[in-house]
């Protein structure tokens, strides 16, 4: 259970906690990673998150934005968020400097089932910024490598210049993660795959009965990831997707992030495929 969930019911769930930006790393055009340290030492020391959860980052005067946590859950000194400039809040965030202060509410939401998947082979299939919410799961796996079988990262982006965290790939490969990368549009010096992420499944020889799939990216990509995984006889109950909706409060009060019976903010963002199967194909739901 997360920090907030464990707090007594008289806590103030709307209170945001001041945090200092201690580092900003530009990743790819329009995307940067912000390292945050919570100002209140009590809040900071009590803060724990699980892979796949998100924070509401708050810039007073601009508003809040739901951003997944992309750092190692075992690290308690700093919280990283990889953010793409998309709206008002993220634009204002992009103008902040190291040492500036923003505020944090969280963590919120469900997590990648890294414990339930122990002993399994794992395929992490992600697109674009969808690698950011999966990176804490990757760190967890790296920290507990012996608990898992084959671990395959299938990652795609629009162009080679849009690939996140490429500097870490060699460290991941050293710990026997198979990292397969593809881009939609290549450049003259690109020697890797060209094509969409689901196509990367074609060359995998999976042992489906012992394979779990975790996917995060555009919904259309995840639909085809699920399709390819099911076609290879991966059990539907071993497939997990992380969905995005308009998460605004993080607590199921505001109603914005509903998808069918779910509040994506508190029932998700990570769902077992069985949960979302009846709704996954529907337009405008």
């Amino acid at each position, binding site marked *: 259970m997360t920090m907030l969930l464990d707090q007594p019911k008289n806590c103030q769930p709307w209170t945001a906690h001041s945090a200092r930006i201690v580092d900003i790393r530009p990743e790819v055009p329009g995307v940067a990673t912000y390292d945050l340290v919570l100002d209140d030492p009590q809040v900071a020391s009590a803060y724990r998150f699980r892979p796949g959860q998100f924070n509401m980052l708050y810039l007073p005067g601009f508003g*809040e934005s739901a951003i997944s946590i992309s750092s190692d859950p075992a690290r308690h000194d700093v919280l990283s968020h990889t953010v793409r400039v998309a709206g008002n809040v993220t634009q204002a965030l992009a103008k902040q400097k190291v040492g500036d202060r923003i505020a944090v509410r969280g963590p919120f939401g469900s997590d990648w089932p890294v414990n339930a998947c122990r002993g399994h082979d794992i395929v992490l299939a992600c697109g674009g910024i969808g690698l950011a919410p999966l990176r804490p799961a990757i760190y967890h796996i790296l920290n507990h490598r012996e608990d898992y079988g084959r671990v395959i990262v299938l990652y795609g982006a629009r162009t080679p210049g849009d690939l996140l965290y490429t500097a870490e790939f060699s460290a991941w490969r050293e710990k026997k993660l198979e990292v397969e990368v593809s881009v939609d549009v290549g450049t003259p010096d690109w020697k890797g795959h060209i094509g969409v992420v689901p196509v990367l499944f074609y060359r995998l020889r999976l042992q489906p009965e012992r394979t779990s799939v975790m996917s995060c990216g555009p919904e259309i990509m995840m639909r085809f990831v699920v399709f390819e995984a099911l076609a290879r006889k991966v059990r539907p109950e071993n497939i997990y997707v992380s969905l995005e909706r308009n998460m605004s409060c993080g607590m199921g009060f505001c109603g914005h992030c509903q998808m069918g019976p779910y509040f994506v903010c508190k029932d998700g963002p990570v769902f077992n495929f069985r949960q979302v199967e009846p709704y996954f194909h529907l337009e405008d739901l």
Partner: protein
Amino acid sequence: MFVNKAPIKSYLSVGKSQLQSLIDGLHKLGYQTIGPRIVDGAIVYGELNAISDLPVGYVDWQDGGKYRLEPSDEAGHFDYVVGPDSLKKFLFPARETLLQSIRVDGTWNMATPDPAPHPLAVFGVRSCDLHALAIQDKVFLGGPYVDPGYQSRRNALFVVAVNCRRAAATCFCHSMKTGPAVEGGFDLALTELADRFVVQVGSTRGAEVMTNIEWTACTLQDIDDARSISKTLRDQMRTRAHNAETQRESELPRERHLDTTDIHDLLLDNLEHPRWSQVANRCLACANCTIVCPTCFCSSVSEVSDLSGDNVRRERAWDSCFTAEHSYMNTGTVRKTTASRYRQWLTHKLATWTDQFGTSGCVGCGRCITWCPVGIDLTEEVAAIRGDES
């Protein structure tokens, strides 16, 4: 003092003029008193300090997109049913501050406003609205997170319920099993008889308030009389489903009922039914239905800042799933069409609400029918999806 203390669940007989001492007694205990008042031709909740301020002698006529008040010789103190207001606006205000932030030397100090609400006593709450209150309690208090503002206002609420003696054509509490008789969740419940009120004590606070008021114990006959009012009304409403044929031929507004058999699966199995597009041709996506609904809880938060940017409030305001912004993300609006928004609203209200909160989100109050400018009627939409055009 304690001689006059009535036990919980007891029935007391109170003279009609004693209603004023009830108001006065609540004032003495520090309550602000709210009750039905006529404003702009409709009954809404307003400050109620004198019993003469009640719309005594009025009845309401409601139909799809229609609401009329009329004086009636037979009408008593509470013979209108529900207007556009509900308890929602008192517990979940249309606009409220969630967080205040002040920047000093580059650091933000943030504080949640201390909720110290004025104790509020609301008169004239009907059974449907008591069920709506219980539903909003589940939303704001029943999950892993508790909304502190709602919680403090809820704890300071005193409910004087009223048993309906008549139903509007738009009422269908009998279908939703939410009325017409009040069954719990009140401090006091009134049933109006010809010459007095039968008051049912529902809580310790209710019993305390009654110590200031002249009452006599009810006879069994009084209790039977009070109960038979609700029973007669319920039986009358239950005949509606069988009278559909005669109803169609009459000029009178159709008396609503809703067949709730397997309604969860019925709606979720028909997410691609053509009816959603048909109703969208009429729906203005104006959000009236969600605003008058006593259970709808969607909200959005906006930033209110001074010019320096150093003093900022986060304000929560009612929102509606009928707006494009409601489902907006940086990749676009999820529910792009009115059809998809009406589908979201109706399926949430009558189906997925049950998955989320273990209860329907509809209490059969009929407000969404009455206050829809084009008279869209959810009972009709469900019947159409069921393939039952009657």
